[in-house]
């Protein structure tokens, strides 16, 4: 079981997969536990920022579920020390890009998470599967008749 989880991880190009403090698997949560993206990234449909969940959210389940898995044991150690897990952010715009991105209107327009984030549900480690370029944003905006005014994103 554990080997099956690790193999695709090794096959990934090293520069794409950020070094995370814990071996968190998106696939285990989405495919096996049948969770939704917004269960943890609660802001993704209703707010500007999707958000990386706090350790409280992890421990809501992991106080009781799969407590003997080695990664969950490591998670519990963070919890007992009252520390947050120092997750490494995978997506995000550079400050110089001067982009003001809001998740909520995109979710309201029916854009699937995978459109900009790839099939995270099949990933064992979150990788930057989609490169966020202005060309990508603008062409999608035009397809959907959303604004292509510079001020729609840059202010």
């Amino acid at each position, binding site marked *: 079981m554990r080997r099956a989880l690790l193999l695709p991880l090794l096959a990934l190009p090293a520069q794409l997969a950020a070094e995370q403090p814990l071996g968190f698997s998106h696939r285990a949560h989405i495919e096996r536990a049948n969770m939704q993206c917004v269960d943890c990234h609660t802001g993704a449909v209703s707010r500007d920022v999707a958000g990386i969940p706090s350790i409280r959210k992890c421990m809501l389940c992991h106080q009781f579920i799969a407590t003997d898995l080695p990664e969950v044991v490591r998670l519990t150690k963070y919890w007992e020390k009252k520390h947050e897990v120092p997750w490494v952010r995978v997506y995000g715009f550079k400050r110089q890009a*001067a*982009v*003001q991105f*809001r998740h*909520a209107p995109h979710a*309201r327009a029916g854009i699937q998470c995978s459109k900009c984030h790839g099939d995270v549900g099949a990933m064992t480690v979150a990788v930057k599967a989609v490169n966020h370029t202005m060309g990508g944003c603008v062409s999608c905006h035009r397809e959907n*008749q959303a604004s292509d005014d510079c*001020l729609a994103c*840059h*202010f």
Partner: protein
Amino acid sequence: MAEQAEQRDPRSEQRVPQWAMAIDLDRCTGCEACVVACASENNVPTAGEEEAARGRAKHWIRVDRYYEGEFPDIRVKFRPVLCQQCDSAPCEPVCPVYATYQNAEGLNVQVYNRCIGTRYCAANCPYTVRFFNWFTPEWAEPLGLQLNPDVSVRPGGVAEKCTFCAQRIKRAKLDAAEEERELADGDVQPACVSSCPAEAMVFGDMGDGDSKVSKAIASGRSGQLLADLGTRPRVFYLEKAD
């Protein structure tokens, strides 16, 4: 007065608002609450003594003073001056990289990441409301901890100016979309307008004849700053006719 052809949004088919502001000079007391509100809303950095002495202080809105009469019968008049969001803006055609343009809603947009810092726009602005970031901005502690996340912090080397609080316009539109209603008059309040204790400033859609700002513009007391230049500003000043 700028009469624009009515534009509609291709997706929602709603009329595109034409933003404008009216400032009642007979109400303005020159308290500069707008100046403070603007700086904190828009992450406008403090310049420091040395830079300010070189004329490099940034104020997206300032309050000009005019003295009328001779002492002791002297009277001070105040005039808040911000980017006039001209329909025929002198800053736009001089930009070699198209970093500033007028959008469908009548806002003169400054695209920070497109700007290469020629400063032609600031040189050509008759209202001197455009500013250049000579350095990467810094804030005296603890002001750096209260930056508005809705507004980009402009890097060194780019020009900036009043945006009519584009982030607040955006937020109001998103809130209206969330509640599945049209944008109502008064939903958008730039920081200067919302902070004005004398309620001297009105902001709204001048394409809508029933909006407060349209009525203020049509009041017969309104005029534009340096109107004879033909810049057709979107900021209207109301004062008692002499």
